[in-house]
């Protein structure tokens, strides 16, 4: 068993290791995403300051709490990034899926380890954003190790749940063979419903109920609530269990969905 796990770790570790190399192949990507991220952070801070100009609290949150949440959401925005729809679309259009299916590895597992590696790279690339949030907008970082622990476990579970959810959506591309519309729609939904633009507490009850009934918020809003002090650390075990249920449910459905969808693969031409 240990030998088997070691072999698997070696294979998938090698697959994950290509991700940073591919990121580093295009230095311009780093600078563009940094500039765009900084502009977005600035806009959101000014927007929420303007909103709080009329009121002291919103959804029970003060301006300081909301800004802490928003700045943390910007720094950890990579938790809500998933490229699966674009990747599936590209590999279907270019016929690369033929080669990917011909590797003796778990198809979903190889994408998952690459997604995790991509998350790591993106979080490192966000370090300048963390410095900007601290220096320019006064972000106060939480000091409670328990809050960080609750955040990290919750982030890993939530990111995994979102990965499986996007896997199901990406499998639709086997049927549609068109990804632009689906990709843009899912990107927009993820940005909004993940809680990257506003804390869930500020949303009207009906909207918050809807957001919690779908998986987008699991990867960003739920973990960030621990870090920004909105959810007490004592609630961590219950939250983790809920997220684990999302992971198991979506994991099973995504595998079944893919097994059916892959039979629709069409790779035209030589």
């Amino acid at each position, binding site marked *: 068993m240990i030998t088997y796990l070691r*072999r698997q770790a*070696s*294979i998938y570790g*090698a*697959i994950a*290791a*290509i991700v940073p*190399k*591919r990121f580093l*192949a*295009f230095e311009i990507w780093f600078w563009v995403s940094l500039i765009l991220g900084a502009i977005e952070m600035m806009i959101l801070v000014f927007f929420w300051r303007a909103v709080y100009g009329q009121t002291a609290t919103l959804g029970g949150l003060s301006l300081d709490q909301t800004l802490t949440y928003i700045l943390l959401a910007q720094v950890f925005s990579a938790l809500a990034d998933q490229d699966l729809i674009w990747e599936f679309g590209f590999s279907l259009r*270019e*016929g*690369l*899926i*033929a*080669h990917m*299916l*011909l*590797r*003796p*590895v*778990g198809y979903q597992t190889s994408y998952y380890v690459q997604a995790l590696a991509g998350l790591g790279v993106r979080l490192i690339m966000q370090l300048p954003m963390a410095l900007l949030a601290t220096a320019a907008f006064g972000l106060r970082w939480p000091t409670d190790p328990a809050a960080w622990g609750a955040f990290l476990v919750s982030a890993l579970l939530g990111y995994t749940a979102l990965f499986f959810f996007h896997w199901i959506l990406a499998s639709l591309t086997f049927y549609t063979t068109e990804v632009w519309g689906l990709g843009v729609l899912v990107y927009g939904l993820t940005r909004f419903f993940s809680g990257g633009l506003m804390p869930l507490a500020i949303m009207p009850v009906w909207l918050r109920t809807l957001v919690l009934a779908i998986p987008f918020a699991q990867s960003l809003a739920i973990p960030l609530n621990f870090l920004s002090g909105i959810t007490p650390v004592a609630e961590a075990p219950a939250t983790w269990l809920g997220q684990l249920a999302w992971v198991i449910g979506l994991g099973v459905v995504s595998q079944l969905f893919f097994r059916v969808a892959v*039979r629709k*693969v*069409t*790779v035209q*031409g*030589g």
Partner: protein
Amino acid sequence: MASVTPPAQFAPPVAYNAESVRPAEAPARWELVSLMPAIEVHDLRKVFRIPRKDPGVAGAVKALFRPRFDEKVAVDGLSFTVQPGEMVGYIGVNGAGKSTTIKMLTGVLVPSGGSVRVLGRDPHQERVANAREVGVVFGQRSQMWWDLALTESLSLIAKIYEIPPARYRALLDQFAETLELNELLSVPIRNMSLGQKMRAELAATLIHEPRVVYLDEPTIGLDLIVKERIRDFIKEQNRTKGTTVILTTHDLGDIEELCQRVIIIDAGRIIFDGPLSTIKARFGKYREITFEVAAGAARLDLPAGVDVVRAEPRQLALRFDRTQATASQVAAAVMSQVEVRDFSLAEPDLSAIVKQIYNGALQEEAAA
């Protein structure tokens, strides 16, 4: 050597004896041939559903509410067997169903009907186990990582296929020498020329020493020197490791160089399956003989069935029907009338033969 007889249901449409097409210089591993065929295809079928839209915006809107589909039969009841170590040329015109067949053999496409077994496995159902033992070159698509240097791609492939480090280094050295890859190892795939990419692609396909290799147009767009190098490499892999090779190509030179057996398909059906020598014997009716002459003769008296292809001051090219005249009769006739300095006899041109077959030579032969 054990005799291998395919089960009756896998019998090819044209009588074919696998023993007759095995190369005489086959190595020891060849002798250990398993009783199990490398590839068994029975009544294989693939039907694609293609959306049908009327032209214009109105047609596109109509298709949204009432989608209609046409069915396109790409592969229609193929049955054949390939023995371990065989190199089979799989040819046909564009749209004949070659690539679709290869994709079903690899397990990428799911057949609409019939069955495929590769080394005893269903390639789609047992995707991972199948992938360990096969290699594929799709001539128009790279399997490597576009942004990574060749050495990084190969090393990742070695990890994925769990090639022991020492074996990987030995194979890499060997491939680098045979395919002249040493200078390319640090070059990202995206910066390679077509020929360089194809050599790298072959290394990536064969580095895990697959037992079955599918080569889908491996020499497309390449110059003669690169083609020659690639053909030599494939031949060597087959000779030394007994690798089974299915080769699809439009370059019949590849088939002549590499394959002892050829399967010709048209509209998804096999129209010929047999040894290359048989096809040449049956349909290579015409041969060309070229003479270097001291001076051209004004008029030549030639045997029946001989035509002049080209008559130049120093060269004379004749085409003869070998059922009516032999090469020696033609040569003797010419030599008795003009001073011949040299002459050469060309083998039947495979592309001309295939053209004949597509133009109905098989049916004509059957009718006769």
